[in-house]
């Protein structure tokens, strides 16, 4: 199997080729470049599956392909070489993620045939080119073997989001949303870049894996009790880890940088599916998993990750409750779900976090594509209050969407239940030993109730009851290019949980936790990048309810399932029926608070327009009047004040020109005579 790794670069390069082809020849091609994209992503998926099989057979691929730049670190006194390279690391984590990304990308391409081509959009070559570039950037990010390469493609992912969110650039709102997405995530990336620079300058390497990885260097520094940049090693690792986390918080839309994501709904729904499930937003959490060994060295950083995640899960879920636009509900659910992943990783649940990342990719792609199908059905209406009764008219859409919704809400046996339960379980057992973490657990648990509620509010309003508009009475047709991806993802949402049935495995004492074994290197992997190695570094003490793992498992599962069901049930009671009432009025002032997203957008707009812009304008006025004023003042005193000089200030440029040229020639002649040119 090892030979297959020769083709590893092609996984990312195929979509890059599709980008070039669609950009240059898209207009002349059938389907305006879609075909190129579909072939490329299908090729990537095929190769990714082969990589997965190779890793399963015990192989790992870690190779440097290209030296981008090399030089010496730090000052001249302690010169030490550093190489910035492009390399590929295919281990269990990245192989899994490659499959997820290329699969979702392929399905999104196929779905686009029905969503974009069939709807007569213009600018399709641009659309498919940007999708290709997006897929390329994300795949290259996923198998990057060092932090700088990861950062570079992380940024390119941001660029592609900007381009695709702003796809409908003729409107006012799409360019604005695109700008916001790029700016807010760039704010996070600023910290990330400082972190990259700091880690590189500290350890002289940015490699994720190997004896010389920055993680290994950091461990050595810890063991040696070194002082780094004036801090003790642990503190410096925490600081640099948190700097990198800035980028994660931006891209994965965690509090307080989540504001760009709901606005990003201005892009085509297919793009939302890609951004939310497999690329942009997933990149942040994936990065934490990728360098989990580094975070494992800093309990403080992990604790912050857990709390940011827990808080975001609850915070975003509460806002999703009052939204009217189907895509808005999904957007807030994405923020909330990534909060769960952060919570899972933060409490040391590496497997749980990655498991939820995988499941979420499937069910969120499903829900967004389902929402896209609904939008086609509804003749481009997105307000759920104008929908209703689509259940009978579009059964494929309904049942697949329902599968995604059940997974999102965390209802057994759908995939989301298993991974969310595992995240909460990991938080619970850590919290039982270290009570501080119980707070993070509690936030995650309460969010389960909200999740159940808003998910079923969405399902009921969209599909049940009576049609509430003309569009809902007479839905548009949808084709197979739309249905096929939905069915694939629907099946995955139902079954993906099998990958890691942790409660079942633990209760029945069966070895069926495949994902855990996969990430622990049972099939193959690098020793230092396994779940076991991370757990050893962390050395978390965990507790159990009544001293029994089984009881803890059951209590935890019952709690989260019960809350999810009661949330769903409440939504069902409130909104089913032929003509549901809005109910949100009853929330009173809380409703306004939630609908305005806790006024956080206002705050950020104020930061940009109320603070930075006036500061900039003041600086500009200062510059014009004071600094330039001094310059003009000095010149009028010294030059124009003199009567002699005034006479040659004729104001005619050619006169000056003659003077200057004459003077210059004169100078040359003098020098020439002096130098003996003319002798």
């Amino acid at each position, binding site marked *: 199997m090892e030979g297959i790794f020769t083709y590893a670069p092609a996984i990312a390069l195929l979509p890059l080729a599709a980008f070039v082809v669609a950009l240059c020849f898209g207009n002349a091609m059938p389907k305006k470049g879609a075909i190129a994209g579909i072939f490329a992503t299908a090729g990537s998926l095929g190769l990714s599956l082969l990589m997965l099989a190779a890793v399963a057979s015990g192989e790992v691929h870690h190779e440097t392909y290209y030296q981008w*730049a090399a030089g010496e670190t730090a000052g001249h006194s302690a010169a030490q070489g550093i190489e910035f390279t492009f390399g590929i690391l295919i281990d269990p984590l990245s192989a899994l993620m490659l499959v997820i990304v290329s699969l979702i990308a392929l399905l999104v391409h196929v779905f686009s045939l029905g969503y974009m081509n069939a709807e007569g959009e213009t600018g399709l070559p641009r659309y498919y080119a940007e999708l290709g570039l997006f897929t390329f950037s994300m795949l290259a990010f996923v198998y990057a073997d060092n932090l700088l390469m990861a950062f570079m493609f992380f940024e390119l992912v941001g660029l592609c989001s900007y381009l695709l969110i702003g796809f409908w650039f003729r409107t006012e709102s799409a360019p604005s949303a695109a700008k916001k997405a790029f700016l807010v995530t760039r704010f996070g990336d600023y910290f990330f870049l400082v972190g990259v620079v700091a880690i590189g300058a500290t350890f002289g390497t940015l490699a994720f894996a190997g004896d010389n990885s920055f993680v290994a260097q950091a461990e050595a520094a810890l063991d040696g009790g070194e002082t780094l940049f004036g801090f003790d090693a642990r503190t410096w690792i925490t600081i640099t880890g948190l700097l990198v986390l800035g980028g994660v918080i931006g891209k994965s839309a965690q509090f307080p940088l989540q504001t760009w994501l709901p606005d990003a709904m201005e892009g085509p729904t297919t793009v939302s599916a890609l951004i939310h499930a497999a690329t942009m937003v997933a990149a942040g959490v994936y990065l934490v998993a990728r360098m989990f060994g580094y975070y494992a060295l800093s309990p403080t950083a992990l604790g912050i990750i857990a709390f940011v995640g827990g808080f975001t899960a609850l915070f975003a879920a509460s806002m999703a409750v009052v939204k009217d636009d189907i895509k808005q509900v999904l957007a807030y659910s994405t923020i909330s779900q990534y909060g769960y992943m952060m919570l899972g990783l933060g409490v040391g649940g590496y497997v749980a976090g990655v498991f939820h990342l995988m499941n979420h990719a499937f069910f969120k792609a499903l829900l967004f594509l389902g929402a896209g199908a609904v939008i086609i059905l509804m003749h481009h209406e997105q307000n759920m209050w104008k929908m209703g009764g689509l259940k009978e008219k579009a059964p494929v859409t309904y049942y697949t969407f329902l599968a995604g919704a059940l997974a999102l809400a965390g209802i057994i046996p759908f995939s989301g239940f298993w991974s969310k339960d595992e995240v909460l379980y990991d938080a619970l057992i850590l919290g039982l030993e270290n009570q501080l973490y119980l707070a993070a657990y509690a936030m995650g648990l309460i969010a389960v109730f909200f999740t159940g509620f808003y998910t079923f509010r969405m399902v009921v309003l969209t599909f049940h009851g009576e049609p509430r508009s003309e569009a809902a009475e007479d839905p548009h047709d949808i084709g197979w290019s739309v249905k096929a991806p939905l069915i694939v993802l629907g099946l995955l949402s139902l079954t993906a949980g099998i990958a890691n049935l942790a409660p079942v495995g633990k209760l029945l004492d069966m070895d069926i936790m495949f994902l855990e074994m996969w990430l622990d290197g049972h099939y193959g992997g690098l020793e230092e990048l396994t779940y076991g190695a991370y757990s050893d570094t962390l050395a978390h003490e965990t507790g159990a309810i009544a001293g029994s793992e089984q009881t803890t498992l059951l209590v935890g599962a019952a709690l989260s399932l019960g809350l999810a069901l009661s949330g769903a049930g409440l939504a069902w009671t409130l909104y089913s029926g032929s003509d549901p009432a809005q109910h949100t009025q009853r929330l009173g002032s809380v409703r306004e608070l939630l609908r305005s997203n806790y006024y956080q957008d206002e705050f950020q707009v104020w930061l940009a327009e109320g603070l930075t812009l006036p500061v900039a304008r003041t600086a500009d006025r200062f510059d014009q009047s004071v600094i330039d004023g001094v310059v003009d003042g000095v010149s009028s005193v010294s030059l124009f004040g003199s009567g002699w000089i005034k006479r040659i200030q004729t104001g005619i440029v050619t006169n000056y020109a003659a003077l200057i040229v004459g003077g210059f020639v004169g100078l040359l002649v003098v020098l020439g005579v002096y130098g003996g040119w003319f002798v």
Partner: protein
Amino acid sequence: MMIELLIGVALLGALVTFVAPNRIAGKLAFAISLVPAALSVYMFTAFDGSGNALLADGGVIAFESSTEWIRLGEYTISWFVGLDGISLPLVVLTTVLITLAIVSSWTPIDDRESQFYGLLLFIEANLIGVFTALDFFLWFIFWEAVLIPMYLLIGIWGGPRRKYAAIKFFVYTNVASLVMFGAFVTLVFSLDVTTFALPAITTAMLETGPQAEIFGLGGTSLASAVFLAMFLGFAVKVPIVPFHTWLPDAHVEAPTPASVLLAGVLLKMGTYALLRFNFTMFPEEVISAFAVPIAAIAAISVIYGALLALAQTDLKRVVAYSSVSSMGYVILGLVAFTQFGVGGATFQMVSHGLVSGLMFMAVGVIYNATHTRMLTDMSGLADKMPLAVGVLIAGSFAYMGLPLMSGFAAEYFIFFGSFGSEFLEYAPLITAVAMFGIVIVAGYLLFALQRAVFGPYLLETDYEIGRAPLHDIAPMFVLLAIIIALGVAPELIFDMITDAVDPILENGGEW
């Protein structure tokens, strides 16, 4: 003789173009400019130099040529030219940018063409001279001579306030040159040398330092005073806050090709001179005394320049002020005094030359079509001019330091070199502050894009805005290709640069 050939062709070409009919001047100048461009690219491939041209420690100066020229008393002035890894990329940048600037002038320049293109070639000759001269007097002649054609380009073909802008540019940078000239000549007189050849002066300076007392100063105090005076002189040229106010005025009034050269090459004269003189000739102890203040000013230039750009409503002013910001990074890299810092600063000189040239060209093409540069007037241009707008977007992201474009490589090298610098106190803190520029630059460029090229098309004109002709677009694609090539493979020039930078860092100088 290669360098003489380069300068000679440009000078001769300038004369020929000057007397050629207006009708063919543009095409003729283009054809002539291809010669230096091709020659310099050939020199790039045939480059066999090593080490730093000013530091004679086993290195080889490429294409070296030296003839004694003038004797002033006991002092010798020579025609002494040559290239090393720092100057060669800048020479190639100059020749390529001149050729592209000539092509980009075909549309907007319709008055006294032969003089215009003649001046462009004349400026090329002098710029090549600045980057190749290794004798102070020779260098200074070229340095001053660059001002003349630029003054005329702004003053004759400029916008409504061209006279004010041209005079301000000329007087301001000339006064600064005077300060620098005085300071340097003072230093030379205090040294044990009888030549104005820069390598000899550098050696004398680093090995023995000032031997005589001048104005009651000697040794370290004299060297420090000269360092400061020269820094101030070059600071105007770069420009560094607070000496930057001539720049936006000059840019706004200058015709597009002049802006391209002003931002693309002329600003680099200042940073190149800082590197060649202040950071090469002076021993570490002199530099280090000024390191923190200079780094602080660099960080201020970055942030303050970016804030000024944010406040502008004229697209060209936005780009003009952003140069202040970008040049701040160069200064930070220089004063970090590490391989990546100084190497990155040099890389940034080349990269910024390409990227700002691209941006000014794109703004120019849009201006040619819309006759406005005000962001408040423009809207939705993407539909009307897809290629030009596409280039503007690409250029904007290059400016923001998007990876796989040259701007990222440059900025990353600088940040990396400066963060870990042991030479510069508080290096991590100052670097982190300066790095925040990457957020503000995204802010003002994305805001400008949102206003100018996206949204519904609203501009009311009494003529149809059509797509720009190919010869307006092609130069921008050439630049974009180079920007991406350097971003993907920075080692194309970075190895060469670090080879010339290393001796500077190793040669600390002990008196």
